[in-house]
């Protein structure tokens, strides 16, 4: 599912919301989450999961192709941790366990 498909689904399921409004809603949700991560904030959505910002220090790395030593600058990356409810919903149903080919 892409963002535009999510927008279409939302417009179908929410009462009295057209495509244009659904688009603004979905964009606002993800823009505000993005803004939070840019500020370095942690996000927590109950029943869904949380995203926290991890800080990585600078280190000396190597270009594997040329063997050249380069300084990798410090960076921040988002880490998602799935919430309990969603974790269970995504995992295999009891009826599916053991029936799947390894």
């Amino acid at each position, binding site marked *: 599912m*892409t963002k535009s498909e999510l927008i279409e689904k939302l417009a179908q399921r929410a009462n009295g919301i057209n495509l244009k409004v659904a688009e603004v809603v979905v964009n606002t*949700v993800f823009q505000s989450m*993005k803004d939070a991560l840019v500020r370095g904030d942690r996000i927590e959505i109950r029943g869904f999961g949380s995203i926290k910002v991890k800080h990585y220090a600078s280190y000396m790395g190597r270009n594997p192709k040329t063997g050249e030593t380069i300084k990798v600058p410090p960076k921040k990356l988002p880490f998602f941790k799935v919430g309990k409810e969603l974790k269970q919903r995504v995992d295999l149903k009891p009826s599916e366990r053991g029936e799947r080919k390894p």
Partner: protein
Amino acid sequence: MTKADIVNQVYEKVGFSKRESAEVVDLVFEIIKETLERSENVKISGFGSFIVREKRARRGRNPQTGEEIQITPRRVLTFRPSTVLRKAMNSSP
């Protein structure tokens, strides 16, 4: 940031009541959860992708007792941030 902050943003931008804003934000996450539950990935351009991965059964060890155990096959959810998000997070030090 919690869902209440997202609801507030929607409230300010869209002109719904607080209650309508809360309902529509809940619905956004519910649609995403239902999609992931069907093992379908969700890709939000400019933000990132939520990806369902199939994990095979493997042998593991209880780190406390050292006892060998079988880890059952399972499905897990991972998140891959988009390049746009990674760049935005690293542009202002």
